[in-house]
């Protein structure tokens, strides 16, 4: 029996989005962070909390059962609440679950959110009882620095090309009031910043921080019944998720991205050339170059040159990381997934202000997570879906 995909079910939409700014560690309770985002999303949708029928909350550092201590302060309603952990992709997974639930008819309106505070995360892989093969020598920046060396050697790109990713994303972040880093940086500033590993300097790596994000997912029936402004509802065309297979010496993040993005676009019956806006997992500058190639947004080895030509700028052929990406918007981990959805929805509604990509009709969100997992969603501007 063929596998069912989102398009086999009734249309599902993002009807409201909200954020708490991503920021350095503070004394604010995660409850304050989360409620700010959720209340903002409810207001954006024009719905009340009692109308939401289920909640999925992504987090990685707040321990067990994060949803109710936060959401009860909206007024207890007894709805099903589920915590979702998928490392960097936690709230992207929360979003996928909310979308599937509404698409299948188990709920008319569902909350997908993410919240996190700075803290120590424990990877289950470190608890297997086996000595880690790397003997504790590697850390994320070091692994991506090695990938950068491989990419530079194979593509002819230079350390300056890597740094240009960060220049673009810091520029985008400077126009985003929710971004953790809101300062434009020159190429020389990025290159001269503190070296972390290999070609990667500090400004080419995502910051450590906290924050929250929320999206309200709804059915067409809910939109009509509740009087939600249909002209601001963004249809979710596809949801794809995969985990790492065996790739020999190839970068597993790039290979997993290739397969999962192809799956999502096939579900949406679109080609990469149809995509106008992309929010991807640019925790380190090299990742953006790798993933735009893996997604098919440009041919292999050409990402650096096309970036330098402005193709991935706001106003270019396809805006990549218009929010500022993980590098500048930030990566508080739990919130990052639904935060990407919030930015993409604003872009597709035409509500992104200074960061607006002109004529944005199709958006794509992408995250990978240790484990390794990959989630890709495809969204369509109001009037551009298949409903």
């Amino acid at each position, binding site marked *: 029996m063929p596998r069912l995909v989102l398009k086999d079910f009734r249309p599902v939409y993002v009807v409201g989005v909200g954020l708490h700014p991503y920021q350095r560690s503070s004394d604010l309770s995660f409850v304050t962070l989360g409620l700010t985002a959720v209340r903002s999303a409810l207001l954006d949708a024009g719905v009340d909390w009692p109308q939401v029928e289920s909640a999925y909350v992504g987090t990685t550092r707040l321990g067990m059962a994060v949803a109710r201590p936060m959401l009860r302060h909206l007024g207890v309603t007894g709805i099903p609440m589920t915590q979702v952990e998928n490392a960097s992709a936690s709230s992207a997974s929360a979003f996928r679950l909310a979308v599937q639930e509404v698409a299948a008819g188990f709920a008319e309106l569902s909350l997908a959110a993410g919240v996190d505070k700075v803290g120590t995360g424990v990877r289950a892989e470190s608890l*297997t009882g*086996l*000595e*880690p*093969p*790397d*003997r*504790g*020598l*590697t*850390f994320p920046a*070091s*692994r991506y*620095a*090695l*990938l*950068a*060396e*491989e990419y530079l*050697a194979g593509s002819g790109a230079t350390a300056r090309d890597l740094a240009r990713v960060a220049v673009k994303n810091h520029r985008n972040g400077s126009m985003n009031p929710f971004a953790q880093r809101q300062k434009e940086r020159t190429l020389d500033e990025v290159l001269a910043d*503190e*070296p*972390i*590993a*290999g*070609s990667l300097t500090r400004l080419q790596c995502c910051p450590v921080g906290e924050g929250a994000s929320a999206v309200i997912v709804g059915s067409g029936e809910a939109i009509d019944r509740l009087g939600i402004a249909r002209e601001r509802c963004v249809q979710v065309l596809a949801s794809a998720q995969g985990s790492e297979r*065996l790739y*020999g*010496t190839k970068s597993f993040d790039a290979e997993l991205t290739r397969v999962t993005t192809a799956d999502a676009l096939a579900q949406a019956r679109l080609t990469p050339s149809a995509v106008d806006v992309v929010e991807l997992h640019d925790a380190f500058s090299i990742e953006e170059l790798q993933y735009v190639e893996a997604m098919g947004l440009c041919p292999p080895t050409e990402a650096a040159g096309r970036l330098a030509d402005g193709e991935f700028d706001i106003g270019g052929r396809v805006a990549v990381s218009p929010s500022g990406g993980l590098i500048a918007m930030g990566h508080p981990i739990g919130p990052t997934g639904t935060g990407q959805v919030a930015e993409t929805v604003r872009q597709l509604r035409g509500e992104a202000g200074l960061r607006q990509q002109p004529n944005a009709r199709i958006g794509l969100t992408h995250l990978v997570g240790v484990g390794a997992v990959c989630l890709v969603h495809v969204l369509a501007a109001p009037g551009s879906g298949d409903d």
Partner: protein
Amino acid sequence: MPAQDFGCEQCGGHDADLDIRELAGTGTVLEAVLITRHPNPQVATPLTLGRIQLTEGPVVYGALSHGDDAPSSGWSGVHVFARDDDSGAGPSQVFVPVSRGANA
């Protein structure tokens, strides 16, 4: 590579299906980077970290040798072997160029 009998990632075979093999400790460096700052204060820096394809096929990360043991023209493609180091001065195992020592 630590021996494990949880199961094979390729075929799912486990326990008695699996044999333990000692690896030769040799391989080829794919890429290398200099680490100047490590989040674990117990890891001494600077550290040269390599991605190494072992002769038997698996790809591992490991510390590469410094100073006189380091190749003069980059690490990519260099054949290496693993050497234990109990001195406590750095990583407990370091990959050294085959041309720099015995045990190739």
